[in-house]
């Protein structure tokens, strides 16, 4: 009990966040190497798989480049809200960190659900989903605005009195957990774990383009959010990865900007201004439905 309420200095928390951030990437690379060995053993290594994996890490590089421009401002916003508008000040203890992780995970669920239900947000998140493969490298496949949307969902935590460094630590822990889910190596985990936690099986469903799996399993760490809010699907049928229509490219620049290029094209093709605007906030399926309707009208 004592350890839960022993206060840390915020510097310690910042150090821990940076430590996890840096060293987990090394661990992830090691895990990816093991996955490659598994692919090799199963004779599944293809040029496309290697090209796709390299592309994933290049998009990570492009993403980090953009993040380097906005990181300070991102942190400053949290401090501004915390310093000026916090309702209470929660002590920097393990107890607080634990509560923050639970709330950050819930925030992640809603942010993730938003990314799938808003045209403008989907344009960046679609990059992550556009790989036809599923391995650790896919976890690092980022779109250009992936840094923007978490801000709005995690910021209320600063208002509730969680120190910005604790929020960032919780964000990193959720992200690190999420990263580990991107694998086909782990089939299913024991039932109690599958019931409470997000697992590779649940996350494979999330990356599927099979109709019954679409827009399911948004969770970060706890799958209970999906179970509670009715967005859960169990992995039964074999998963087909990627998005409709398939991107079919391993060009990192094309992949990185694919979502916004496609959104711009869709906006350009529509003459009605209200529909142009709808493309930005309606779910991506709405754009697809419009296209199908037009096709049906033409053929009819």
């Amino acid at each position: 009990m004592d350890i839960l309420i022993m206060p840390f200095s915020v510097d310690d928390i910042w150090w821990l966040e940076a430590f996890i951030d840096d060293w987990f990437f090394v661990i992830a690379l090691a895990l990816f190497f093991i996955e490659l060995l598994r692919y090799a053993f199963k004779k599944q290594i293809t040029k496309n798989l290697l090209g796709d994996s390299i592309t994933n890490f290049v998009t990570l590089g492009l993403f980090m480049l953009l993040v380097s421009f906005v990181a300070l401002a991102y942190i400053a916003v949290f401090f501004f809200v915390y310093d000026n508008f916090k309702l209470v000040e929660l002590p920097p203890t393990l107890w607080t960190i634990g509560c923050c992780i639970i709330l950050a995970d819930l925030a992640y669920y809603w942010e993730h659900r938003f990314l799938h239900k808003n045209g403008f947000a989907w344009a960046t998140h679609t990059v992550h989903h556009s790989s036809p493969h599923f391995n650790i490298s896919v976890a690092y496949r980022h779109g250009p605005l992936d840094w923007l949307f978490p801000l709005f969902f995690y910021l209320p935590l600063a208002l509730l009195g969680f120190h910005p460094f604790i929020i960032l630590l919780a964000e990193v822990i959720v992200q690190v957990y999420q990263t580990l889910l991107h694998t086909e190596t782990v089939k299913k985990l024991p039932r109690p774990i599958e019931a409470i936690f997000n697992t590779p099986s649940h996350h494979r469903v999330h990356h599927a383009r099979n109709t019954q799996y679409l827009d399911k399993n948004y969770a970060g760490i706890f799958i209970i959010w999906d179970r509670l809010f009715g967005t859960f699907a169990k992995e039964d049928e074999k998963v087909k990865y990627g998005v409709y229509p398939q991107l079919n490219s391993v060009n990192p620049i094309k992949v990185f900007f694919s979502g916004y290029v496609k959104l711009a094209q869709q906006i350009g093709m529509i003459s009605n201004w209200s529909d142009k605007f709808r493309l930005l906030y309606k779910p991506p399926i709405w754009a697809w439905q419009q296209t199908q309707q037009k096709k049906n009208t033409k053929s009819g």
Partner: protein
Amino acid sequence: MKLAGSILLSSAIVFTVWGVALLQPTPARAISVTTPAKASEQPKSTTDKVRAKPQSKTNQNDTKQLETLMIEGNTATLATAQVEQLWRELSNNKRLNQKLLRNPSAIYVYYRDFSANYDSATITVGYSSTDLSQAKTATTIASATYDSLLEKKKYTPSQLSSAWQEIDYRRNLERVIEIHYLSENSEVLATEVLVKYKEL
């Protein structure tokens, strides 16, 4: 579940978890005496509004002579912001507490050997040896004249915290002594903060 229902349920979860975070036993509550545990947090890394606006007048010009004092308690070299850890250790120090002759009249917090940036120091939180049946490993605080940073009075934790901003860090800080005077029920009645700078 419909979207509105999911959002409502999420709000309920947020307030529940937040409530749990708020209800955590603070170190101040965890120890047997009500301690102004945050009194010693140096205002260095946060931009806390309260700390930015000191609410207590300090008495930097007043001096006070303190005779040689022996205190026994828990000592560690650590970040001054983590002094609460020592308060807790003192509270859990059964061996020492069994030696108390009576309810202690005061708890002393003695800071010395500050790091270059005043982030950390060697800190002792303990009782006067006169309150103890024996004091084999007592720390001696040599007789000296101190600048009075806060006169003996009841202060809020934020006022105590703010007082640390009034220390003249340009001068060589030698030691800081916080004296928390206790009631019969071990509640803090008043606090006094004394500062000694190295003589050049």
